[in-house]
Structure formats: structure tokens, C-alpha cells
């Protein structure tokens, strides 16, 4: 096994050389890379686990907001607002961007760096187009006389799009980072790290897509 012997003398019990392999399932994982040690703090799982945990928190916040929406719907003073056309366009845009992101991930896995670069750029552009379309949606709301204040249903339009938008900006930042770095040829751990990052960003981007679709359907159908 390619392990480095410590240059430091092990002065304490339990950490000197020559002891048997410890029991427990978190020992060596067979490819010479340890969960921790050998100087490799990076584990492939880190980004994925983190994104899942992050998504749990975001889901909780939107569950809270969506329950508020459902509780307040139908209250006295609730006047349904027509779904602006721009939000339908945005929905289409973000759905397509999910597909292009999947394509990007597939290309990079197959080692098609150039194609990957194209798809990731396209995803980024679609993401930006989504934001533009959302802003257009706000303009259409204002034109229709639906403002932040006043009727809770119109407030929720702004609240949902705004809160989703802030979280989407995080996704866009990550996509921009990937796109900027997409030209680089990476090997070894750096490459592994990038693959993990791409996996994580893809996951988050699909999540943003799914979240928007839920919010969109709620605003559109549950009046």
C-alpha cells in the first residue's frame, strides 16, 4: 500500500507504527485513498453530501412559505391574480436548461471537454434568460396592477419569485465558475474535484428547476 510513514515519532499510545489494522468499516476504502489522511482532505462525497444538506434546508424554507400560501389562500381578502405569460416562458427556459445541464455532465464524463464547454455555456445562458424572463414577469404583474402590497396572492408572486431567484443566483454563480474553468485540462485530483463539482452543480440546478415548477404550479393552479 502506498502510504507514507510519519516522519514524526509517535509518542502517544495508539498512534505508533506496527499496530494491526483497526476494525470498523471506515478503514481503507481499497484504492489507497483514506477518508482522511494522506493529506487528502477532499472526498468525492463532500460536495454531494453538502448539496443534499443544503437542499434540505432550502426545502424547509419553501415548505414554510408554501404552507403559508395554502393557509392564506381563500381567506377574506384573497384575490387571485392571473399568471403572467412571462412566468410560463421562464418555466420552459428552466426546464430546457435542466436538459442541457444533464447533457453537459454526460459529455464531461465521456471526456468530451469541448462539447461539455458548449453545453455548460448554453445552460448558463438559459439560466440568465430565465432571470430576465422572471423580471419581465414582475413588469407584467405591475402592468396588471398586482403589487407587493395589498392582496396576499399578488404578494406571494413576488415573494416566491424573489426567494427562488436569490437561491438561483447561487446556482448561476456556480455555473459561471464551471463555465470559466471549462477550458482547462485537468488531471488527477483536480479533475476528480471538478467532476464532483459538476455533479453537485447539476444536482442543485435540477433542484432549482423542480422548485420553480412546484412554485409555478402552486401560483397558477391553487388560487
Amino acid at each position, binding site marked *: *500500500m502506498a*502510504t507514507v*510513514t510519519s516522519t514524526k515519532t509517535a509518542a502517544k499510545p495508539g*498512534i505508533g507504527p506496527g499496530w494491526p489494522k483497526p476494525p470498523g468499516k471506515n478503514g481503507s476504502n481499497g484504492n489507497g485513498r*483514506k477518508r*482522511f489522511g494522506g493529506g487528502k482532505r477532499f472526498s468525492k462525497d463532500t460536495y454531494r*453530501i453538502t448539496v443534499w444538506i443544503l437542499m434540505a434546508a432550502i426545502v424547509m424554507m419553501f415548505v414554510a412559505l408554501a404552507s403559508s400560501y395554502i393557509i392564506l389562500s381563500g381567506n377574506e381578502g384573497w384575490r387571485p391574480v392571473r399568471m403572467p405569460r412571462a412566468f410560463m416562458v421562464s418555466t420552459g427556459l428552466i426546464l430546457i436548461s435542466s436538459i442541457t445541464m444533464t447533457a453537459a455532465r454526460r459529455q464531461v464524463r465521456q471526456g468530451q471537454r469541448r462539447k461539455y464547454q458548449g453545453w455548460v455555456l448554453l445552460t448558463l445562458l438559459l439560466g440568465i434568460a430565465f432571470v430576465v424572463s422572471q423580471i419581465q414577469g414582475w413588469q407584467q404583474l405591475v402592468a396588471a396592477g398586482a403589487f407587493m402590497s395589498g392582496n396576499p396572492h399578488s404578494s406571494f408572486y413576488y415573494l416566491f419569485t424573489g426567494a427562488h431567484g436569490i437561491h438561483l443566483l447561487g446556482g448561476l454563480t456556480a455555473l459561471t465558475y464551471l463555465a470559466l474553468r471549462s477550458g482547462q485540462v485537468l488531471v488527477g485530483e483536480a479533475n476528480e474535484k471538478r467532476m464532483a463539482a459538476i455533479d453537485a452543480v447539476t444536482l442543485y440546478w435540477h433542484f432549482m428547476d423542480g422548485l420553480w415548477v412546484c412554485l409555478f404550479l402552486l401560483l397558477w393552479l391553487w388560487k
Partner: protein
Amino acid sequence: MAEAIHEVHRHPAPTGFIRKYIFSLDHKVIGIQYIMLALTAVVVGLVMSVLMRMNLSWPGTNWPIMGTLFPTGAPGGVMTPEFYLSLVTMHGTIMVFFVLTTAPQGGFGNYFLPMQIGADDMAFPVLNMMSFWVTFVGFIVLLTAIFAEGNLTVGSWFSKLGESFAAGSGTVGPIGGWTGYAPLSALGKIAGPGQGAGVNLWIISIAIFCIGSLLGALNFITTLLNMRTRGMTLMRMPLTCWAWFTTAILALLSFPVLLGGGILLLLDRVAGTSFFIPGGLYVSGSLVPLHNGGSPLLWQHLFWFFGHPEVYIAILPGMGATSHILSTFARKPIFGYRAMVFAIFAIGMLGFFVWGHHMFISGMSPYSAIAFSILTLSIGVPSAIKTFNWLGTLWGAKIRFTTPMLFAIGFVSLFVAGGITGLVLGQTSLDFFFHDTYFVTAHFHLVMGVASIFGMFAATYFWFPKMFGRMMNESLGKFHFWVTFIGVYAIFVPFHAMGMVGMPRRYAQFGEYEFLKNTHGLVLFVTVAAIITAVVQLVFYFNFFWSIFKGKKAGDNPWEATTLEWNTPSPPPHDNFAGIVPVVYHGPYEFAVPGAAKDYIMQTEPEGAA
């Protein structure tokens, strides 16, 4: 095989003062920063509680110094009811958020979770640093709320931000309790003094705090799942790690809900929305225009969905520390490790389904109240399991009465005393009488307030030698324990008696009501006990800071404990284990193992070598 050791590329220790002590990425420094924040915040909260007691015992008394310090809150030295209520609000908010959430989790969790699982740092050091500084900003914003309401000059700065920020109402902070029930908190300054800029800042502060806690929770969970050292299986983790892990999950799932609720409340105040404000309100002599369609109960649901897990966020780390310390000084393995893990998880998870017990009489459906009530009392079961197991741990032990052990035993006693009245308050029929009386105040102060703090005192005395390389003074520590232990009982047991006669919480004075007149002696007794107990905390502060510089030098393992943090120098080097990866062979509490050379086996001690 030379598998057992590896050289770790140590990320070099920072050298500059700022990177080392201020914007440090080291989880140990960040942990101490959190502890220092809590030590600062708790002074503010404690002083406020003493002022509250003074106002309750001697209403209308002229305290010239108060008039000087708070010309608007206590004009001429006499405390106003508004002043009292803002103390109530700020005391609760500061204690719950900036003491009971920061010290147990952000402080000790940050410092010792990575060490106890054998990691060299948190998974995301930068995130960790941000989580502290975000929390710190939240604290500053909360303190600003005091001045925005109470100081005309500061108030006028905030007035420029818009009408809802108009303040300078003459109180010293927002009024609304730490629960900030809408629509009182949503209507703005028409609802009376203390409802202006202070409340906006209060909400913003809590929102900021939520973000800080979320960053922390994300880090804790990832670290624990992904960075445990070799041999550190989940079931070999110290119970402290289980407590911090469960707490992080609670924080992760509950703070977003409060954040969402806080955003809605802030929008109601500054953007004219109506999430919590129904139509047709008539406040302070005029009809409230424009608002329509909101629900005051919605705020309570959102708040308590967070608020109930929050009380477990405060106490679970204390439970973890208590289990850990009891076992160490009982020189005996923890009784029922698996049951303890199960119980801590059960308490955490059940905690998400009982928020309605704060709302029995709020106007919510009486059917859901029954469901919430039965779920609430079922939390008593895992809590009882924990108590039994603590007693089981001490049974047949060989107890060393160090200061941390005294506080840990105190924790068990206080946890029982405070927790068990949950059986009274959790019943819908008894809530007819007890809701919002001093019985409630007694219950939660004992269990989530004082018991948690005892857990943290125990943790402080226990880990101080590891953190600073010196021991705290035992005699001062014991003196501190005795006065505090008897003091908190003297303060909070009489609260039950006040609850029995129906004394309502959050009353600035009791003189208005005949049915409260028999309680005057009790109120006075509590005040005296509170002042003595509060003053004695100075001994702790002195001991803490004096010992950092002058305490007796501590060895690597002064308590003869077993877990990984005792397997490295005190204080630990920058990367925790000096470039060596600890390998774990044993469970966390191997004390008094028959046939072993010593009465404890460290987790790193290899099989057979003992």
C-alpha cells in the same frame, strides 16, 4: 502493514494576528470566539433579568442611576412598563439565540466535534468562519435595536430608512417578547411604543442569526458524516458528537422556517403586505388601512415550528456533555449507550411534531390540540430513558467530585426538575389555567435555561484545560457550583407557586390585581436569590479569565478521559493531532475494564496492547 499512520500535509498555521485570532479558519479559534460571544451576551441578558426582578419587586422606586443610564426608558429613575417589556423581549432573545444556541453548539461543538472524531478541522473552514461572523453581526444588530428605540439620535438615523423604521419611542428596545406575536409585531409604531425600528432590527437580527446557524449546521453535518477518522464508526462516537449532530439536524430543518417567517413579518412591516394582518383592524384610535387577508395564527405556527426544536437545540448539547462528563468521572461506561443515542434522536425528531402545545388556547383547532398534547407527553419517554441511564451510569460508580462533575450532576437534577412539569403543561385541560402563567416560566427556565447552562458550565470546567492548557481553580469552581445550584432552585421553584395562583407572565407590575397580592413575599424572595446568584457568576468570570493566564498547567489528559481530544497536547496544535491521524479501536467510554492496566482505555489504544 504500515497502515495505521499517515503524514498529513499540515495546512500551515497562520502567523498574523488577524488571521490567527480574528478571521481565523481554525475551528478551535472559532469555537472560542463563539464562547466569548456567549460570555458577552449572557452578561447583557443577566443584567436585564436583574433589572426586571428589581422592577417587579420594587415597582415605582426611583433608581437615580437608571435615570442616568436610560433617560428614555426610566425617566427620572423610575422604570416604565415599556422599559420592563423591552427587557423581557431582549432578555429572551439574547439568551435563547446568542447564549443557548451559540455556546453549546457553535462554541463547544465547533471546538470539540472535529477533535472527537479525529478530524483536523471542519469540512469547510471558510464557511465556519463566516458562520461566526454572521452570528456576530446578528448580535450587533440586536444591540442596535436597543438604541434605535431608546436613543433619539440613533432613532433619527434609522428614521431615514422609511416610515416603518421611525423610532425613538422612549423604550429601550422592541416590545413583543421573544416570540414576537403578530399582529402586535407586524403593525408598526401605531401599535404603541417599542414597535418601530427596534422590531425591524430585531427581525433582521434573527434572520441574520438564522443564516449563521444554517452555515454552521451544514458544516457540522458534513464534517460528522464525512471526516471521521479510521475506526471511528458512528457507534463509537462520544455521545457529545451524537448530541451535536442531532442539534445540527434540528437547526438545519427549523431555522429555515423561522427565516421564512421572519421575511414575511418584515415584509408586513416594511412592504405593506398582509401575511399576518387580517382586515378590519382598529388600532390606537383609527382603522388600519390597506391590510387584509392575513392570519395571526400563521405566525405562531411558523414561529413555534422553529421554536420548539430550538429548545432542544439549546439543551441537547448539554445532555451530550453531561453524559460524557458523568461517565468520565464516574469512571464507568455510560449505561445503555445505544438507548442514549436512540433517546437523543427520538427527542430531536419528536420535537418537530409538538409545536402546537404552545398554541392550545390560541384559537387553533381543538382536535389538533389533542394530537399535539399526546405527542408532547410522549417526549417524556425518551427524556425519562436519559434520566434512568444517567442514574444507571452513576450506580456502582466510583465518583470523582470535580467541578465539571458537580455541574453535570446538577444538570441531571435540574433537567428532571424542569422537564417533569412538562407533564402538567402538555395537557390541554391544565393549560386552561397554566398557559402563560409563571408555571410556564418556571418550566422552561429550569429545563432549557438553567439546565442547559449547567451543561455548559460542566463543559467549560471540563474542557478548559484542553482549550487553554491550564486548569481552572477547583475551589472557586466548587463555590460557584454550590451557590448557583442552590440559587437557581431558590429562584425557579417559587415560580411554580406563583403559577399556582395564576400569576401571568410578562406583567410589568402585579399590584393591579387582588388575586396576586399574596405573592409579594415570593416575588421579593426570588429577587434576592436572583441578585445573589447573578453576582456569584462574577466568580466564574474571574476564574475563567484568571486561569487562562495563571491557572495550574494541565497535562494532555488531566481527567484521565478516553476520547480523542485527550490524545493530543493541551492546547492542541493548529491541525489538532500534530500531523498524525488517530486511529480508533474502542468505544468512547471504556472505564473500569476488568483486566486492563489502568481504569480507562483510550479510544486510540490498540486491541490487546492494554
